[in-house]
C-alpha cells in the first residue's frame, strides 16, 4: 500500500491553489487552457490523459476556492459522453449538467443539459432554463421546462457509476471547503484578544478547532480512498463514495459552524467569506443524498447483503 501523492499531483495542487487565488472567477475557457476540463479525457480527444486521482486534486482545490463553474457537474458525466463530446469539453467549448430531478444545478454556467429517459441518457434540446434564488450563489439551482430529447449520449446503466463519481467529487470539494474554514478560524483566534489574552489560548475555543482538524483529516482519508476506488473501478467504490460523502459533508458543515462561532459577530456578517463557505457546505450536504440517507445505504449493504 502506498498512500502518498505523486510529484505531478503535488504540482497540480500548487498550480490550482495559486491560480484560483489569483483568478477567483475564471472562465470555462481559462480552465480548459489549464487542462482541467479535460483532465481525464484521452489525448486523442484533446484531453490531458490524466487519471482520476490527478483530477481529484483539482476538485479539492475547487471546493476550497468555491469555484463558480460547472466542473463537478461536467466531470461527473464526462467519461460516459461520446468521444467527440469529450473533446469539446476538453477544448472548453462545452460543459454539462445532468437533470436527474426537478432541481438542476449549474444551469447558469453549463452549456449543455443531459436528461435520463428510459434506458438512455439524452441531450436535452431546446429547453427553457429558469434559475431559482439559491443560498449558495456559486452553485445555483434551477429548473428546465419544455425541450425534447436530442442525441443519445449513453446508456442509463452508467447511472450508478456516475453517481459514485459525483458523490466522490462532492466529498473532495467538501474537504477543501472545510479546510479553508478551519484555516480562517485558526488565523483569527491566534490574533484576536479578549480578557487580555489571545482567544486561541482558551480551550473552549481551541478544542472545537482541534476536533475540526481531526474530522477533516479522517474525511480526507475517506475521500482519497473513494477517489482511488473510482480511478481503479474498484468493487468497493459505491460504499467508499457513500462513506466519504456522508463523512466529509458533515465534517465540512461542522468546520464552518465552529469557524463562524470562533469569529464571533464577524463570522455572522455578509461581508466575511465564511457564510459563503458554509452555504456551499450545506448545499453539498443536501445533494443528492443526505449523510443520513447514505448511512442507511451503507447499513443496508452491511446488514442485508452479507458483507462486513
Amino acid at each position, binding site marked *: *500500500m502506498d498512500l502518498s501523492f505523486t510529484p505531478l499531483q503535488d504540482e497540480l495542487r500548487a498550480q490550482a491553489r495559486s491560480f484560483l487565488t489569483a483568478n477567483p472567477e475564471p472562465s470555462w475557457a481559462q480552465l480548459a487552457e489549464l487542462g482541467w476540463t479535460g483532465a481525464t479525457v484521452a489525448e486523442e480527444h484533446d484531453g490531458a490523459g490524466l487519471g482520476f486521482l490527478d483530477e481529484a486534486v483539482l476538485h479539492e482545490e475547487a471546493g476550497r476556492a468555491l469555484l463558480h463553474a460547472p466542473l463537478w457537474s461536467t466531470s461527473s458525466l464526462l467519461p460516459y459522453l461520446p468521444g467527440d463530446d469529450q473533446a469539446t469539453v476538453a477544448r472548453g467549448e462545452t460543459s454539462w449538467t445532468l437533470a436527474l430531478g426537478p432541481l438542476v444545478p449549474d444551469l447558469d454556467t453549463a452549456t449543455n443539459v443531459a436528461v435520463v429517459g428510459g434506458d438512455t441518457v439524452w441531450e436535452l434540446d431546446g429547453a427553457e432554463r429558469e434559475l431559482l434564488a439559491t443560498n449558495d450563489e456559486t452553485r445555483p439551482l434551477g429548473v428546465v421546462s419544455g425541450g425534447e430529447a436530442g442525441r443519445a449520449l449513453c446508456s442509463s446503466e452508467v447511472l450508478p457509476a456516475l453517481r459514485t463519481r459525483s458523490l466522490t467529487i462532492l466529498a473532495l470539494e467538501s474537504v477543501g471547503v472545510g479546510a479553508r474554514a478551519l484555516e480562517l478560524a485558526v488565523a483569527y483566534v*491566534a490574533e484576536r484578544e479578549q480578557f487580555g489574552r489571545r482567544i486561541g489560548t*482558551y*480551550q473552549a475555543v481551541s478544542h472545537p478547532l*482541534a476536533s475540526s482538524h*481531526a474530522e477533516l*483529516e479522517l474525511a480526507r482519508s475517506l475521500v482519497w480512498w473513494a477517489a482511488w476506488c473510482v480511478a481503479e473501478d474498484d468493487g468497493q467504490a459505491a460504499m467508499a463514495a457513500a462513506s466519504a460523502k456522508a*463523512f466529509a459533508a458533515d465534517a465540512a458543515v461542522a468546520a464552518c459552524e465552529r469557524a463562524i462561532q470562533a469569529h464571533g459577530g464577524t463570522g455572522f456578517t455578509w461581508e466575511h467569506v465564511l457564510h459563503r463557505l458554509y452555504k456551499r457546505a450545506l448545499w453539498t450536504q443536501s445533494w443528492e443524498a443526505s449523510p443520513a440517507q447514505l448511512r*442507511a445505504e451503507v447499513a443496508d449493504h452491511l*446488514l442485508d447483503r452479507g458483507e462486513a
Partner: protein
Amino acid sequence: MDFRDTPEEATFREEVRSWLATNLPGELKGHEGGAARFDGSEVRAWSRTLYDAGWVGISWPEEFGGRGLAPRFQAIYLEEEARAEAPPHLGVIGLGMAGPTIISRGTDAQKQRYLQPLLAADEIWCQGFSEPGAGSDLAGVRASARLDGDRFVVDGQKVWSSYAHIADYCILLARSDPDSERHAGLTYLIVDMHAPGVDVRPLTQITGEAEFNEIFLSGVEVPLENVIGEIGGGWDVAMTTLLHERGTLGFALVARLEVQVGKLVELARDRGATAGQREALAREWIELQALRVTANRSLSALEKTGIPGPEGSILKLHWSEANQRVTKLALELLGPDAQLLAPNAPYGGYWPVQQLRSRGNTIEAGTSEILRNIVAERVLGLPRSR
C-alpha cells in the same frame, strides 16, 4: 497512491494468516483475558511461540533480535493478529514504549542487555510515569532520585501502571535535582521491579479486573548504567516514549476496532436493529474505514522519518471515542440482557465488560483533553493554553 498490497506485502500477509490459522490454539482465540491474561501461563507461552516464529519485533533492527522490516509489515501483522482474534504478546509496554525508547535513546550496553529478552517475553516491562499528583501534567513528577556514588536511590509513588504486578523492569521518570521544577531536573531510569524497596499493589478497575497497579518505591537502588539519556534530561526521553506509544499503538487499535465493529454487525443481525440503530452502526463502520486509511497514511510519515507523526494523536482520539460508541450501541441492541454478567449473559458477557473498559480509552495514553491540546498547539499552531 495505491490501496492494494504490493506483491511483497500480500505474500507477507498470507504468511501471517496461514501461520495463525495453523498455530493459534483454539482456547486462546478471542482470549480477552481479564486476570488470566496476566496470571495464566498460556499467554506467556503464546508470546514465546510468536517470538520463535519471528512475529515479534518485525520492524526492529536485526542486531537486537528483530527482523529489520519496514513498519508496514509490522502493521500487516497487527491487522492479521487482531482479525484472527489472537491474544497480543504479553510485553505490550516493552514492545510499544520501553523497547523503542531504548533503541532510539539507550546505550549499546542497554540495547544488548534488554531488547532480546523483551522480545522473547522472558522479561516484562511496565511504565512508571504517572503519580497521584502528576497525571496529565506529567511535569509535576515528584518521585525523587538521589545520586549516591555510582547509583541513584529512588523514593516515591507511581500509579496507573499496567502490568506492574508481573513486570521485571520499569521505565521510570524521577526528579534527580530536588531544586528543579517542571520539565528540568528529571531523569529517566530503568528500575528492576524485583529490587528491595519496590512494592506493587494492584488496583481493581471499573470492570472488576486488575490491569493496573500502584508502585511504591522506598530506597530503591538504581545503578547509573540504568539511566537512559542524560541525567536531568529525562523529559526529552519521556516524550520519545509517548510519541511511540501513540504512534505504534494506532494500528493495533484500528485492527481491534475492526473486529469490534464486525462483532457489532453480527449482533445487529442476530438481534435486529431499528432504523436509528442501523444508521448508528453505519456511522461506526464509516469511522472505522476513515481510521484504517488514516493509520496507513501515517505509516508514510513513519517510514520517511522513523518517528511517528502527530496523526497518532488523531487516531487515538477518534478510536477511543468510536470504541465507546460502538460498545454502547451493542448494549442498546442487547437491552436488559446487557446488565447480566457471565455465565448467564449472552455472548459470554463480552459486551458489558467491553463497554465498561472503553471508558478508560479516553483517559489512558493521553486523555482526550490532552490530545486536543496537542492537536491545537502542535498541529494547528495555536498559542499554548498554559
